[in-house]
């Protein structure tokens, strides 16, 4: 295989073997970014349906209560939380602040994200 930079090597972005936590953050950020963008446009299309009238909306609410959809909802919210919290780190370090602490920041923010995801999980699946 060619060793020079090539767009075909894009899969190596997502290969964290032998890499440091910075790469994990990079991978997570990139995957959640792609996922959230896809969700954003799907969401817009779905909303278009909803605007059509009450019967569509009620259908949707019934649909949204399916466990599969709920898992999807959890995934989207989790992605959002992770992307947002890591985004804070990227914004801070990207402006030259606390670059030395980027690893610590990542660890603590991801703990926070886990907590947030847990709360969302409880709210979606246990409190309903």
């Amino acid at each position, binding site marked *: 295989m060619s060793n020079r930079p090539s*767009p075909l090597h894009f899969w190596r972005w997502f290969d964290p073997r032998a890499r440091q936590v910075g790469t994990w953050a990079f991978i997570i950020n990139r995957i959640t970014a792609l996922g959230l963008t896809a969700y*954003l446009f799907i969401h*817009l299309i779905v*909303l278009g349906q909803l605007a059509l009238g009450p019967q569509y*909306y009620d259908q949707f*609410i019934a649909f949204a209560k399916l466990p599969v959809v709920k898992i999807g909802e959890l995934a989207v919210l989790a992605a959002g939380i992770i992307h947002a919290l890591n*985004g804070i780190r*990227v*914004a801070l370090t990207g402006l030259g602040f606390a670059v030395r602490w980027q690893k610590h920041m990542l660890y603590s923010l991801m703990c926070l994200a886990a907590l947030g995801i847990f709360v969302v999980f409880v709210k979606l699946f246990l409190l309903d």
Partner: protein
Amino acid sequence: MISSSPKSRENAWLWLYKIMSGLLIFFVLGLHFLVNHLVEKGGLLSYADVVHYYTNPIIPVIEVTFLVLAVSHSLIGIRSIVLDLNPSGKVLQFIDWCFIALGSAAIFYGIALVIIVVSRATGV
């Protein structure tokens, strides 16, 4: 040497916009959840709820702001991933136009939706 992907125009302002819009989305989303929670305590479970929700004038403002920020943030972000794939100048130009078209379409479409719902809510 200086660039093999001419006119990518990746620059300070674009980067700053990406960062700032990200932070704003964070706040607007927080606001959205807060308002959502305060205005409609049980959640938007029926169409009537939604319509009622939109009678509050702050809601469409928040929603549209969120829409514009989220669409631009995501497309600028995806574009910087595309740049990493070393597109040729022509391909990049094409992608840029696609993104601009997609972005503006999404925003107009979203605004249209908000107008429809608001018009029903206020009975105009």
